[in-house]
Every structure is written in C-alpha cells, then in structure tokens.
C-alpha cells in the first residue's frame, strides 16, 4: 500500500497561497498544480486531486503536464520535478481516465524507478491490458535480474512489488503472465513473495496460491503480516476469514482486510458471517 510522503521538509509556501497540508478546495488544488514556482504545492495538489478522484475537466490535462515535468536523473537536480511527476502518475490512476494511458505506459520505461513504480500502480488501477506486456518485460529477468538487490541500496533493480500487483489487478491470466510471476514466489523478501502470490490468486482463483499468503500471516515480522492481510483483502479471498482474525496485528488492518473479503470476494463464508467477524473487531 502506497502512503503519500508528508510535506515535511519542503520549503514554506509563498503568502498568497495557503500552507501545504491544509484542507483545500478543488479549485485551489488546480491552481496549485497550474503554477510552477513551488513544487511542494504542486506535489500536494497532485496527491489531493487523486485522493479526491477529481472529475474537473482541467484535472487530467494538468496532471499530464505535471507528469511531463520530469527530468533526466542528474545528481542534485530535478528531484522535485520527479516527485511531482510520481504523484501525478499515481493520481492519474485514481482519477481513472483512459486518456492518461499512453503517457503512463511511457513512464513505465522511465529511468526513475519511483516513477516506474507509480506508473505501474496507476496502470493496474486503470486495468490497462496494453500494460501487461511491458510489465512482464520489466519482470522477465526474474530473481537474478529484476528481483536482484541494488548495491548499497534497499531497493531492487525493478519495483517488483508494484509490477506484480499491477499484473494481478489488470487480470489477464495467460500463461506468459503466470510464468513471469511464478519465480517471484521464491524471492528472498517476504513482501515480494506476498505480492506474487496475491497476483496469482487474483488471476487464477486457485486455492494453492492462497497458501503462501496464509503462511505469511504467521511471519514473525509485523510488517509482513500486515502486507499479507492487505493482499488477502485486495484479492477478497473469503476462506482466509479465520486466519485473518487469528493473526497478530492491529484490528484496524484486519477490518480493512475483511472489508476486502466482503467487497471483492464471493461465496463462503457468507456476507453475514463476515460482517459479524468485523463487528467483533470494532
């Protein structure tokens, strides 16, 4: 789950505009995105328009122009433009308009790994089938390539988690896609394994792919158990009800997972049983 960065650390805004982080109107958000003096205001405005799923006619053109603001990666330059572009890509996914697809597909090949990640998530949210092939190509080198650690960095060569999740969200379950995802079930990082199992379960509905996710609910690290909860919720895997209730994690996250079971899942346990389980967690 992607959490927007806080605005801390960005320069104070000029006086005519209110401070970043305050509640704002749609009009104000569009005004902030339109100006290009203060990137922190653009950054917040892009996030806001996505969060509110703004349907204003100016929203898509302004977000696309913010996405184009990105610059080639040079040390010490262009970082803020890229941060604005990432939030714009993420917002384009949430606003849900097909006009953004060509530019998001282009962003999937960007040098900036963070932008590739945001573009992948956006294309997943939009359910863009044209993205399946490029997403698979990014992952095709498998554990030794895309999934390998970068030297001196906690990051992998590719934003694997986002790429895998996007394939699951788009829902094209052909053998090329499945063959691309399967190797990541053996990734050394549990969060990548969780993303791979989630995508396979979404694509096939085969109970066997639920097993790795259920096993991760018993993982010693809370962060991993949380990810498995969110992934089971995203799939809506109703047979996971009891393991979800039993795992050691905050009730808030269990409630989000059970909401997913109700809203995305079908079959047994029944909706009433799931609602009663949610009541017990309130």
């Amino acid at each position, binding site marked *: 789950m992607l959490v927007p960065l806080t605005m801390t650390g960005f320069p104070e805004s000029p006086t005519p505009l209110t401070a970043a982080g305050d509640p704002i109107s749609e009009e104000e958000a569009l005004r902030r995105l339109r100006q290009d003096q203060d990137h922190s205001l653009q950054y917040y405005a892009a996030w806001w328009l996505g969060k509110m799923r703004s349907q204003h006619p100016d929203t898509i053109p302004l977000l696309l122009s913010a996405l184009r603001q990105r610059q080639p990666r040079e040390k010490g330059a262009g970082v803020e433009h890229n941060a604005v572009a990432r939030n714009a890509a993420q917002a384009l996914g949430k606003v849900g308009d097909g006009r953004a697809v060509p530019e998001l597909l282009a962003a999937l090949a960007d040098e900036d790994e963070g932008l590739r990640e945001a573009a992948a998530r956006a294309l997943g949210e939009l359910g863009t089938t044209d993205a399946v092939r490029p997403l698979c190509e990014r992952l095709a080198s498998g554990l030794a390539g895309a999934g390998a650690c970068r030297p001196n960095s906690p990051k992998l060569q590719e934003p694997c988690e986002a790429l895998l999740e996007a394939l699951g969200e788009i829902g094209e379950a052909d053998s090329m896609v499945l063959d691309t995802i399967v190797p990541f079930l053996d990734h050394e990082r549990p969060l990548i394994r969780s993303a791979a199992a989630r995508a396979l379960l979404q694509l096939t509905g085969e109970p066997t792919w639920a097993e790795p996710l259920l096993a991760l609910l018993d993982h010693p690290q809370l962060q991993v158990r949380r990810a498995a909860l969110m992934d089971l919720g995203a799939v809506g895997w109703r047979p996971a009800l009891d393991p979800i209730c039993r795992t050691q994690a905050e009730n808030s996250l269990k409630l*989000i997972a059970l909401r997913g079971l109700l809203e995305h899942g079908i079959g047994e346990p029944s909706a*009433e049983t799931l609602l009663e389980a949610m009541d017990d967690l*309130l």
Partner: protein
Amino acid sequence: MTCFERSPLLPRDTIQARFAALIDAVERADSASQLLQATRTLAQTLSDLRQDSPAEPPPVDALACLVRILGFNNPGAAVAAVEGLIACGPDAVAVLLGGLDDRNYGAKAWAVRALAGIGDVRGLAILEQALADDVGPSVRRAAAIGMGTLRVSHLAPEHRQTVRQRSLSALQGASKDSEWVVRYAVAAALEKLCMELQARERICDEALSTLNILADIEREDVPVVRLRARLALNRLLSPRA
C-alpha cells in the same frame, strides 16, 4: 499461564500477596517482551479472580497497574491490559476515569477502548468526547460501538432514556464521520441500541432513519458500510423470534 489457585475461599491476604508479586513483576520488567508477559499474567489472574469469585472486588492497585500500562507505549501489553480491565467490568471504571491523562494520547485512546468494552454509563461523557473529537479513527470506532453497548438495564427508566438519547445523538453526529470504519461502527452500534428498545419508540425511529441513510447508495459511498446498515435494518425490521 496463571499461578493463581482456583479457590473461592482463598484468604484475602493471600490474594493480596499474589497480586503484589504480579504488580512487582510488571514494575521490574525491563524489556518489551517481559512487560508483555507480566501484563498478560496480571490481566489473566484478575479475569480468573472475577470468574471464580464474582463477589470479590478486584484489588485497586492491580487495576491501577493495568491503567498505568496503557501509557507505556507497548501495544501488545496495552491490548492485554484492556482485556483485563474489561474482564473486571464496572469495578474498573473508577480507576480508569481517575487515571485518564489528557497529555498522553496513546494512554487515553486505550482507556477509551476499555471504557467502551465495559459499557458502564459513567464512561459516557468520555465516549461522547472521543467519538466527536478524537484524531484516531480506531478510537472513534471503539467509542461508537461502546455507545451501542452501554448497559442501562439497572438504571431508573428516566435516566435510561437520557443515556439512550445521548448515545443516539452522538451516533447520529458520527454517521457523517469521514472514515468508513467509524460509519461502519455507527451502523453496528445503532442496531445494538435498537435491539434493547421496544419497536416504534421515538429513539428507534430516529436510529432507523440514520441507518437508512447509511444503507443508501446515493448517500453512502462505501459498500461495506451499506451492507452493515442493511443487515441492521433487516434484523430490526423483521419480526423478532
């Protein structure tokens, strides 16, 4: 897990010595896991005492120790402490209210959960304030469900009516909360509130109209909130067995 002997006839000073040792273990814990273990033992022992000797009031210093643990920033221990306090029921309320510390947000949030779980009307004002103003959705959620499960059967009819009216007003306000999970808890709480009432009482009518809003696709965006509100309406409007 507990070393408490299950005997209803255990002498008072034996009980006190037992709890003094358990409290001491909490005070001496010097790691998160030791604190968690000591808290669980203390909470479990209090629950056992409650079950085995319901007439025996739980020792105040043991309750106060659990309340202090709520402020230790150890979520696992706090969960165990809240469970222990809820098991002690109304006997824990005075100590909880007396230990509230507005400056320690975390401790207060846990105390609200304990008060919500106990369902004693002395906690009503705290629940109202938490539901209206608390910054944490999980605290507002707990306060909301607590509003629906306040125990009022022992109160005089007039007092009972006042408490229910205050709960209803607080829940109506919270039905417009920005967080889905709070609105969900409001739907569940309204159902519980109405279950206690005779059908067609005025409070019940008002609760049903709030539930109708939460069940309406035009006025409620989140499917699971609508599902919960519809379940409440079905249960309340179908003839009772």
